[in-house]
């Protein structure tokens, strides 16, 4: 085999591997876009590993890091001068004696600085611990996920209104997302009306049933999924189930994400359970221990109008409601997105 043959073979092999690499990249991109590879899964892996890093704070790692820093924050003035050869030891000892006054002066200042810095860190640790203790009181006790994932309000009574609003706003700007779509009954109805929609649901059983029914449903949680969607990519967003139980902080994120991800002119619908009906349905334990409680339809209407949605309607049924709005093509007024005072009012209202 000549050198030219070898070079040609090498070139062919590289071209083949380049092609395989491109195909792999395309597959990853395609499956991410289709939701087979939920970005939230990768993000959760990163977040989980971050908890085990030396700078992570989980599992009391901060205290461990502080102890490590304590041990390193002392500069030893007594340099080792021991040696196996006597003359060399004498030289080291002589050098040490000659420089000791200088080294003592520098090292004592370094030790003072290190001790002060560590003292500041310990004070910060104490203050943070106090804050964590106070916040822990406000944190609701964990409930098993299957208890929290109780089905949301029935969307059927609002289906005609949703379809009408979606058609009137048009869906050319992108797809419609139904977040926490359960078994996908609403999606099926939308699809039957010719509306391109897909769904997500964190419950395995529900999403499996929907997939078996031939619907485009992915297993994912709402906040993580919305984070991964491009801005203004959705023609419509229907939120249900999650809106009944998310914590106040999570609901604030949800509203901000909805505002960012729905295209101008697109539709936002919140299908929620009436607070009184929700208490009856979930029972006292879940109602008391859930991180969040349903808001009234008036409150949702108020919130979505604050973040640049117009034409806000709310429809009520016996146990549920739907708040439907269209995203204005004009940007929302500065500082309007979920202002703190209004959040407090909204919580009190529920």
């Amino acid at each position, binding site marked *: 085999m000549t050198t030219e043959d070898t070079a040609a073979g090498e070139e062919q092999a590289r071209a083949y591997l380049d092609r395989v690499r491109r195909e792999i990249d395309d597959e990853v991109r395609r*499956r991410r876009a289709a939701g087979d590879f939920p970005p939230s899964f*990768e993000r959760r*892996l990163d977040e*989980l*590993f971050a908890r085990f*890093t*030396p700078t992570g704070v989980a599992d009391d790692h901060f205290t461990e890091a502080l102890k490590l820093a304590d041990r390193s924050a002392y500069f030893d003035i007594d340099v080792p001068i021991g040696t196996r050869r006597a003359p060399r030891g004498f030289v080291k000892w002589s050098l040490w004696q000659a420089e000791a006054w200088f080294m003592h002066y520098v090292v004592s200042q370094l030790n003072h600085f290190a001790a002060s810095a560590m003292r500041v860190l310990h004070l910060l640790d104490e203050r943070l611990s106090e804050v964590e203790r106070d916040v822990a009181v406000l944190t609701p006790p964990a409930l098993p996920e299957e208890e929290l994932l109780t089905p949301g309000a029935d969307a059927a009574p609002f289906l005609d209104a949703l379809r009408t609003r979606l058609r009137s706003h048009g869906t050319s700007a992108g797809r419609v997302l139904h977040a926490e779509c359960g078994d996908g009954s609403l999606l099926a109805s939308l699809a039957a009306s010719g509306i391109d929609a897909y769904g997500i649901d964190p419950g395995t059983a529900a999403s499996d049933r929907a997939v078996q029914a031939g619907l485009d449903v992915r297993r994912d949680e709402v906040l993580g999924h919305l984070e991964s969607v491009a801005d203004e990519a959705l023609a419509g967003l229907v939120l249900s189930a999650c809106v009944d139980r998310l914590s106040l902080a999570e609901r604030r994120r949800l509203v901000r994400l909805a505002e960012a991800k729905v295209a101008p002119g697109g539709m936002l619908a919140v299908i929620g359970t009436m607070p009184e009906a929700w208490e009856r349905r979930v029972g006292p334990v879940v109602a008391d221990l859930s991180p969040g409680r349903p808001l009234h339809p008036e409150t949702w209407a108020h919130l979505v109008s604050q973040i640049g949605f117009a034409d806000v309607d709310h429809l009520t049924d016996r146990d549920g409601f739907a708040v439907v709005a269209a995203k204005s093509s004009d940007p929302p007024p500065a500082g309007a997105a979920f202002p703190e005072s209004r959040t407090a009012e909204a919580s009190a209202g529920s």
Partner: protein
Amino acid sequence: MRPARIDQVVPSFGGRDAIGVHIMHLRGLLRDLCFESDIWCEGTFPDVRGECRLLSELPARPRADTWWLYHLSSGSPVADLIGARAEPKMLDYHNITPGELFGSWVPWAVAEAAAGRRQLDDLTGASFFAFADSAFNEAELRAMRTMPTRVVAPLFDPAALAAAVDQDLVATRREQRAGGGVDWLFVGRVTPSKAQHDLVKALACYRRFFDPRARLHLVGSAMGEDYPRALRRFAARLGLDAAVHLTGPVSDAELAAYYATADVFVSASEHEGFCVPIVEAMHFGVPVVAYRAGAVPDTAGSGALVLDDKSPMALATAVHRVVDDAVVRDRLVDAGAQRSGEFSLERSRARWAAALDEAIQTGPGSAR
């Protein structure tokens, strides 16, 4: 002018790590080329104590007709000691892992890396010739100083490794494999710069989306305690404690058994000066998927699937493609065998002999 003696010096001499193996082979070559040659170090291990001399025994006065070959891969007071001596010096640069890749996991390695970079500058100034494991390493040398350099791969013998496989371990591994599941393998120090945590993440994706019985074997000794402990806790939290196996240090025969029973070699390492395990895996017919870092593309050539993206999904999908697509796998295995053949001990010795000859022509007293 050809010296009578070329002595090698390395801060810490271990007979089984890549640099230690290279130094042993190089001493054999130097002696075959009729040089006197010894290995000097500051510290060593009991199993190779008889192979080297301690620097504490080094005469203070310069030795006549002797050249040094210093192996640089990290910072050490030994570099300053050798740099200050009067004998002519050559440098064999194995690269220094950037300190930031150790982060706060291994604080002493960060300081050592910084010292190593400073000493690299000093030693390139004090040496008349430098060898580099890879074009990547050579580029670093050239960026630092204009000097005669030569890229020449380290000496190791994959064929000898393949000749001594721990058959008991192979049998045990085959029993484990009987229940199905793909076996991933990575060989290298367990340290954040090798990014084994990215392999655990990729395995989590692979098990969820492609093969729920897949396993990951991380072969190699640990650098510090925090990182391997974090890896174990991370794997346990993901429910992968039975699927992620950190072997710790292994013998050559055990290492060969892991190569012999792996389905794919996967590297997510952030930095490599050469990466001997890639070539060893190729020699064992194990397809290689590796993240493009440092010298990995130089070493892999067209014998491995080198990726620009090491996100967990990208790595998992690449491994799935290599394992599941027989055409891709066979082509990688064939190309890998060809590539590893280029690093056979015989060929590498010939390249080193030529490189040494070039260095001698450049050295003190030469006509150039």
